[in-house]
């Protein structure tokens, strides 16, 4: 099935926030933010800015009618700083003006006097100072203290993974307009319309029903618009209320990069113990998460780090401790993988360290310890329907690993200044929000009396293809042609109390809700058709917009049936709610069954290294991935490839560089580089595991958004192996990303 949205995209006809036609009288807002990483505001001078022709109003914290508080999990973040500032880029004032240029010029004319305090940018220093977002958490099973004695090899070390700028191509933005009774409509580029609505209500002192949030689509999200789309929508709303005019607020790229948080950098310690034959007996890890200046989603991200501490491996004795450290960087936030990638990098590093000590290939340890049914994970969930071994096995056979490894060896023998490295990366990723309560969704389905169908859910389309999947679900359930189904915008007035579109769960949760709503309508129409045609309900089926009686066609079509049903006063609308069954988690014991199921897959990566210049190319990535029975194979393929390349970007290119005083140095696209078409692997082959129907899934499918991101770690491992082929004795720290600088300096130590 073709993706309807794509047809609009290729013609430039799809509408993003900044593309909606502006009503007459629209004003534009820009944000003044903190120039220092930590301190107090002594004085804000706005007189010069106010005098600039075209400036309508300058808003500061005292102008907020409700609570100046946007924190969602922990309430520790102001919309506009009133006294203390905690990071460079923290919003302090909003300028509302006739044009965006005037607003920006006025921002420059606002002068703020600060009293500076020392800034902390390093997570370990923050931890030492006791600056934690929440108490540390520990997941454990078995007894590592006892297990070390039985280990033949013990390795320990430290790892570092960097941040990552989301770089959604559409920057953050929102458009606010007033409704007649003091209400607001907010058009927002957000993954969480309800979050925007709830926080706007809190800040503006309005009941939620007076705020309508509408989201048509996002120009990319990747987690960066889960919580952090909220402030801009709330600011636009605040401005609209204060000036009684519609207001648009769109961040420019460098503003977005400076003011918003990124993937959390982690600094971690590990200790791993193995038996002589390579079985992992014990594993300990401590994660120092750099949360930035406010909690945002950090504690939830930290939790997923703990869930994925052991990645795809069964380890009987585990102790993993995680600390969320408060620093003076912009609050870091959700990003594809949500703490999982950071945890997996640590265990993979530990395996490499152990393999080097044992003089074996890391892949042999990986393979030997893969999870199987019945294995208990450190948090108590028992592995079931485990497919990591089939994915591994299938990959080795289908893509002929032995031949690849031999080719790499031969290449390395022949070439002195170009080396190749081969590495594997298994991924086991739990599907569900780890906060059990969020695993719910709603749908509202209307069948209009011309037979056309409109579906509204809480899912936000951000390029991941959720609308294409929802359309398939509705069309299949109703038995209508997909062309007659339209997925409407995500609107808090139509579907309320939604969870953000996140955790790879958008299609699963909202798809089930859509299915249930469509089933209700179908059932009513079946009964009506049976009565009309004087037959039993069991005999009626709908297929491709035709009505079949005992499998045979009939004069009645979907459209005529719907029309008759309307005149017979049959309800053609249904609302449905879905809550994932059987999941639970007890935080007091850190045990439970948090995931509905797991997503599995493996990647084999070959990297080619230029040993003169320290540059590298990812030559090939071969993937076997389990996605159940796909609802939309080309959509899912696009998710695998896109996540992979984003993951390689995180591991081998993208470097979020801050100065010691908390200033973002890579703050434009000319200094922060993300993969381009040449950096993407020369060859990506993706195979979906066959006969992999997932019985509990939505039409037997599985979630796809995040898991393939972690294949990117395989690229890091492959580059490292190529470096080792050039300099076997090189000391290569477990630090990501690899950049040409890090590679060259490790190849040529002083």
């Amino acid at each position, binding site marked *: 099935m073709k993706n309807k949205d794509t047809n609009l995209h290729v013609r430039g006809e799809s509408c993003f926030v900044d593309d909606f036609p502006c009503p007459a009288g629209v004003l534009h807002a820009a944000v003044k933010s903190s120039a220092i990483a930590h301190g107090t505001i002594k004085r804000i001078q706005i007189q010069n800015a106010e005098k600039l022709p075209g400036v309508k109003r300058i808003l500061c914290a005292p102008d907020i009618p409700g609570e100046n508080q946007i924190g969602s999990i922990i309430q520790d973040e102001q919309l506009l700083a009133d006294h203390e500032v905690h990071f460079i880029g923290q919003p302090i004032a909003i300028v509302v003006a006739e044009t965006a240029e005037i607003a920006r010029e006025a921002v420059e004319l606002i002068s703020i006097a600060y009293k500076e305090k020392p800034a902390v940018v390093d997570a370990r220093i923050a931890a030492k100072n006791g600056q934690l977002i929440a108490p540390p958490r520990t997941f454990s099973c078995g007894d590592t203290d006892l297990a070390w004695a039985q280990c033949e090899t013990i390795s320990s070390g430290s790892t570092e993974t960097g941040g990552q700028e989301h770089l959604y*191509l559409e920057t953050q933005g929102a458009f606010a307009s007033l409704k007649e009774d003091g209400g607001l409509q907010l058009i927002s580029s957000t993954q969480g319309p309800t979050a925007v609505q709830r926080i706007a209500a809190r800040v503006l002192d309005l009941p939620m029903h007076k705020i309508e949030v509408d989201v048509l689509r996002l120009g990319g999200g990747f987690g960066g618009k889960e919580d952090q789309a909220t402030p801009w929508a709330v600011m636009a709303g605040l401005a609209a209320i204060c000036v009684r005019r519609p207001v648009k607020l769109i961040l420019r790229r460098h503003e977005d990069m400076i003011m918003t948080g990124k993937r959390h950098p982690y600094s971690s310690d590990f200790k791993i113990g193995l038996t002589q034959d390579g079985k992992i007996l014990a594993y300990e890890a401590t994660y120092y998460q750099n949360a930035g200046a406010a909690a945002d989603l950090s504690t939830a991200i930290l939790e997923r780090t703990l869930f994925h501490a052991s990645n795809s491996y069964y380890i009987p004795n585990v102790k993993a401790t995680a600390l969320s450290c408060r620093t003076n960087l912009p609050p870091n936030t959700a990003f594809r993988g949500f703490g999982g990638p950071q945890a997996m990098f640590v265990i993979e590093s530990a395996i490499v360290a152990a393999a080097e000590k044992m003089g074996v290939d890391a892949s042999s340890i990986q393979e030997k310890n893969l999870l199987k049914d019945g294995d208990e994970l450190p948090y108590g969930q028992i592995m079931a329907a485990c497919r990591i071994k089939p994915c591994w096995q299938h990959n080795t056979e289908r893509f002929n690993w032995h031949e690849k490894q031999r080719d790499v060896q031969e290449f390395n023998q022949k070439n002195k200044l170009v080396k190749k490295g081969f590495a594997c990366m298994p991924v086991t990723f739990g599907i569900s929000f780890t906060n059990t309560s969020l695993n719910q969704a709603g749908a509202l389905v209307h069948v209009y009396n011309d037979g056309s169908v409109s579906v509204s859910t809480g899912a936000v389309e951000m390029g991941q293809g959720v609308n294409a999947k929802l359309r398939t679900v509705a069309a299949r359930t109703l038995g209508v042609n997909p062309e007659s189904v339209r997925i409407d915008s995500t609107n808090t007035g139509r579907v309320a109390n939604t969870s953000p579109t996140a955790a790879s769960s958008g299609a699963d949760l909202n798809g089930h809700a859509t299915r249930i709503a469509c089933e209700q309508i179908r059932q009513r129409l079946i009964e009506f058709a049976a009565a009309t045609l004087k037959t039993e309900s069991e005999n009626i089926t709908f297929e491709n917009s035709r009505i079949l009686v005992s499998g045979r066609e009939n004069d009645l079509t979907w459209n005529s049936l719907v029309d008759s049903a309307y005149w017979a006063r049959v309800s053609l609308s249904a609302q449905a709610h879905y809550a994932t069954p059987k999941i639970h988690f007890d935080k007091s014991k850190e045990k439970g069954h948090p995931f509905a199921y797991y997503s599995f897959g493996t990647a084999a990566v070959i990297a080619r290294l230029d*040993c003169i210049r320290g540059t590298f190319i990812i030559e090939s990535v071969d993937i076997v991935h389990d996605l159940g029975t796909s609802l939309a194979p080309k959509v899912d393929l696009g998710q695998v490839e896109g996540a992979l390349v984003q993951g390689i970007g995180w591991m081998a290119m993208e470097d979020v560089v801050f100065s010691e005083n908390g200033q973002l140095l890579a703050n434009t696209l000319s200094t922060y580089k993300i993969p381009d078409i040449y950096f993407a692997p020369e060859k990506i082959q993706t195979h979906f595991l066959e006969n992999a129907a997932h019985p509990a899934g939505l039409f037997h499918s599985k979630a796809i958004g995040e898991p393939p991101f972690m294949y990117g770690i395989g690229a890091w491992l492959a580059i490292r192996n190529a470096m080792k082929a050039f300099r076997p004795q090189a000391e290569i720290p477990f630090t990501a990303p690899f950049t040409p600088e890090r590679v060259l300096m490790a190849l040529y130590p002083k």
Partner: protein
Amino acid sequence: MLTFYLNQNKIATSLHHGTVLLDFVRRESRLPGTKEGCREGDCGACTVLLGEIADEEIKYRAVNSCLLPIGSLAGKHVVTIEGLNLRENTLLQNAFVDEHASQCGFCTPGFILSLTDFLLNNPTLNFEEAILAVAGNICRCTGYESIKRAIKLLLTEVESRIELSLDKRVPELVRTGQLPEYFNTIPQKLARLEFDVEPENPGKIVAGGTDLFVQQADKLLKQPLQFIDDGQQSREIYRENDQCIVGASATMEEVRKTPVFREILPEIDTYSKLIASKPIRERATLAGNIVNASPIADFVILLLALEAKLILQIGSASRTVDLHNFYLGYKKLDLQEDEHIHNISIPIPNPGFKFNFEKVSRRTHLDIASVNTAAFFAVEENKITDARISAGGVAPIPLLLKNTNAFLQDKIIDPAIVESAMKIAAEEISPISDVRGSAEYKRRLLQQFIFAHFHTQFPELIGAEVLA
């Protein structure tokens, strides 16, 4: 009034000429298909086609509308995504739909425009050239694999359906439904277009504007500007005796394509891929790259090794200065107020010379170098008779490595000489630590490059062992 064509509509505007085209099409013309991604030519979401008559033929090229001041548009034709749409999708659009080569869609119009440039201009429609055409377009969603599939599908479709001889691409693409019919009428319309030739005004000189509009777009909106990119004369590139003369407003792409320059640097296509992106090179001028005085300017590094000279003009007076003497300090030039570059003069070397260009940046393409370097060697029986190695990113100015070059003079090439040259080069530079790398790294990198210059040009003399 400034007049030009935007898609099929005639535009006459009195807006400030420093207004960038991106803002003009989105706000004034309400064409939202062109997207703002970065405003610095680094993402390609705002790509448009710029058509102009040259040699009685209309030539289109993809450019970044975020860096293109409307003052450069007089008498030209601008095409946005809206101006490409027909009732039915084109083969290009359908290839993207069929292969799901668009996810969030924000970058997609830019890709479509860049590939339209490819269809309009490339003599051979092959995969590698198509990839080169989108090297300035960033997509954060797809990982590019589906875009590559769409390009392959497009090439198959085009091959079977369209007769693409180079000299009449526009009518052929119109005939086969790949471009709207109005394209055929544009040349006549442009010829009839009356536009005031802007009076010589004393404003700030803008050539390509690809760096000016990154650094100071807001400031440029508040001052008079003088656009020199349209002077056909100043765009000329020609041979004069043993020199290649490049006019002040000749762009990097124009220079790359000129036979006389290709004679000097036969490998320019390879180097050129490492310099900016095609849409930037279509606008960026050599003279702009020189006066911008970035210590890391790629083209300046090439020109230094080629011993280029500048012909500077002030009124009717002119003088010549060696490029390597032009830089007095960080962003400090041997250039008087009101003086400007008139020509660049590059000596055509005697046959048999060796030349190499090296650059490493965080990302290989469309990125600013950590260090770049070029080397020119004249050699007689393994003896270096002339060595000119230049390096960027290692000093406040684009540097000619004088000590290294002097050392190499008259030396017989062998590993020991190369090792010494690496050491001397490392000693005569003064790199600083910044976002593009630590000083220590830049020093190391330049040494690696010195090795690479010899290893690539004299592989039989300089093997891997020097680095072992």
